[in-house]
């Protein structure tokens, strides 16, 4: 591997406060019946800040603030004015993008080149896109006068903290709802800076409320009788529990859950491009991606060639300091997630798959996992069935397109899939048959605010992004 001098991004653009309260009704407040917890940098285990943990009363206060703002301010406000607030927020995010990118990498562990070049541009674009819908809802295809639902309870994961916030808050506000959002307990900081951005934009108090905390806070929020809408992104297990919790209520529910995507490489695929796509598919964001291409299906006749190229490419990946601009793979988000990745990887070895990682030096402090592939994987192996949510790729082979479809669809999930081939008719034939909400052909892990995203089967329901993304926040 080439030697590069360290190229660390400066932390000086970020001013992390020692402690953060809850953002309720436009102000940061101390919890009344909650406690506090610490958010750490997963690359160094250093404590970044102390954050409030919202108890049931705090959640109640936030929901009431959102209700009042919905009834008195945000609901009655003309769409064109809601639009202007959202455009303002989009602009402030663009202006503060460096600061937010560095903070995201510090709190999450993802490489700065990703938070800077992928997350933040998409966050701003998402607000900019939905801002424009706020005064055009009658043209969205949901009837002449679609109405907002009221108060939206939103619970988001730690893998793309600010981007998931944008996916939730932008369409909700554009449609005229107010929100109470709970960020993940390991990555609350960018959501709290977003709260400051709401203040900076003079967004009316109570339209956006941020309650930090863990599972109990999330449960109190989605089960609160005063919310009209629940939106969740996270594990299928928690999604199921939420679906049960809202059963029999008026709450409208959208869920974006787990995945076990097949990335399918045919013998006529451009191998170098496919290998880049495989690497992007599973090692992007340390594999902490619900739509990650975690099952590689290679046509048997090219399996050796593809694997050889893939291993050569993997040996070039730089694992380490997330703030270094040359880093490809950053830190695993938490000790708990690292433990889960280790457990499933050990199960892969124990069940008879062959494990390979490039030689790679991992930092001593923090949570790290070397990019790993398993070959000789069968469909019965746990590593072929369960979502690992880490930089671990399971490799299977196939002979015919029909067999590829069969194996790709042999999962309770259905979030995404990849196809690599030079033959156009085969792409379309495959795309028709893959039971997945997003199909990337000769590319992978591409996102855009105009493009609907969401799963089939146990990957959840509803779509985020595009015109479709408004539907979950309107009474249609």
């Amino acid at each position: 591997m080439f030697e590069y001098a360290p190229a660390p991004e400066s932390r000086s653009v970020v001013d992390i406060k020692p402690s953060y309260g809850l953002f309720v009704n436009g102000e940061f407040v101390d919890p009344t019946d909650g406690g506090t917890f610490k958010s750490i940098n997963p690359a160094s285990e250093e404590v970044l800040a102390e954050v409030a943990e919202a108890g049931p009363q705090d959640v109640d206060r936030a929901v009431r603030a959102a209700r009042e703002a919905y009834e008195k301010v945000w609901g009655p406000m003309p769409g064109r004015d809601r639009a202007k607030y959202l455009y303002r927020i989009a602009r402030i995010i663009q202006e503060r993008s460096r600061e937010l990118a560095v903070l995201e990498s510090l709190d999450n562990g993802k490489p700065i080149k990703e938070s800077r070049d992928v997350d933040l541009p998409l966050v701003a674009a998402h607000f900019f896109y939905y801002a424009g819908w706020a005064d055009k809802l009658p043209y969205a295809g949901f009837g002449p006068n679609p109405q907002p639902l009221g108060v939206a309870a939103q619970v988001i994961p730690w893998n793309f903290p600010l981007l998931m916030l944008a996916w939730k808050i932008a369409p909700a506000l554009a449609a005229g709802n107010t929100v109470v959002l709970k960020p993940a307990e390991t990555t609350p900081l960018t959501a709290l800076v977003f709260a400051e951005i709401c203040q900076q934009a003079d967004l009316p108090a109570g339209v956006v409320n941020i309650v930090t905390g863990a599972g109990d806070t999330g449960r109190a929020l989605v089960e609160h009788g005063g919310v009209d809408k629940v939106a969740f992104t996270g594990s299928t297990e928690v999604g199921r529990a939420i679906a049960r919790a809202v059963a029999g209520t008026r709450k409208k529910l959208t869920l974006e859950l787990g995945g076990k995507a097949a990335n399918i490489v045919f013998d006529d695929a451009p191998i170098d491009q496919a290998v880049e796509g495989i690497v992007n598919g599973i090692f992007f964001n340390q594999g902490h991606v619900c739509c990650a291409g975690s099952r590689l299906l290679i046509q048997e006749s090219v399996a050796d060639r593809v694997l050889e190229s893939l291993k050569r490419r993997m040996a070039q990946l730089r694992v380490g300091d997330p703030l270094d601009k040359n880093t490809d793979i950053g830190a695993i988000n938490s000790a708990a997630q690292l433990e889960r990745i280790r457990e499933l990887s050990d199960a892969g070895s124990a069940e008879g798959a062959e494990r390979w990682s490039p030689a790679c030096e991992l930092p001593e402090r923090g949570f790290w996992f070397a990019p790993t592939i398993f070959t000789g994987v069968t469909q019965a192996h746990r590593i072929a069935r369960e979502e690992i949510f880490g930089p671990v790729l399971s490799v299977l082979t196939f002979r015919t397109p029909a067999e590829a479809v069969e194996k790709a669809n042999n999962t309770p999930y259905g979030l995404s899939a990849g196809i690599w081939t030079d033959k156009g008719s085969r792409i379309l034939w495959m795309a028709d048959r893959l039971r997945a909400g997003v199909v990337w052909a000769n590319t992978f892990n591409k996102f855009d605010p105009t493009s609907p995203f969401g799963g089939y089967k146990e990957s959840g329901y509803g779509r985020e992004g595009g015109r479709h993304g408004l539907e979950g926040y309107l009474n249609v």
Partner: protein
Amino acid sequence: MSERVAVRKTYKLFIGGKFPRSESGRSYIVQDSNVALSSRKDARDAVVAARAAVKGWAGATAYNRGQILYRVAEMLEGRREQFVALGVPGDEVDAATDRWVWYAGWSDKLPQVYGGANPVAGPYFNLSAPEPTGVVAVVAPETPALLGLVSVIAPAIVTGNTVVVAASPAQPLAAVTLAEVLATSDLPGGVVNILTGRLSETVPTLASHMDVNAIDLTGVTDAELAADLEVKAAENLKRVLRPAPTDHDWSADPGITRMTSLLETKTVWHPKGV
């Protein structure tokens, strides 16, 4: 000369294009007739038939599905008097026939109205199109017996889903007679399956069945049962349509929500380049 002795009809289930009795050998008396009393096993058999029909029906061209739904309207029009004899008002039969015609036309239009190209910020072709979710369990409304039934079946199947319908327990004859219409309309066997009997026997089985993709609770009037069914449906994250308000106006413009809530949106990306 003595008066001719009428030939009575046996009202049976409709599963996989055939008219079997309940495997349990049971029936119940309703609307002055013996009607099959479905068991949990009948419900499971119906799901197997519905699943087997998905590939052909979802894979049929939209033009073909549209023609078949229109054919259903043709057949229903011809059997108007038969439904009137069962007590369905003539206006309702007409409205039900018109509803088939209305939905028939959606088959090749909904993908354009509900999908399309997305202007992504990059050199990519990006297209979103709706697809059927798969097997849908449907609890038909108790009333209106025919129009309500048609109004829940047609929007589910026009896009390529297959259905297992729990007919109104109190007025099942219209449902069984509609099955006869469907069986003579070139609708492939298994696309629509109709169960008669007690909801409490069949619907919980459908709600918890792991090979059912969605459940339409329109006809469930007991709020507690509806909540329980929704909890069961969460096990494999079925798409759930909650019960309709009891004062729902079935003669009003149905809109497209019934169709779209049983669809998945698939988005396909491909790079542009030379």
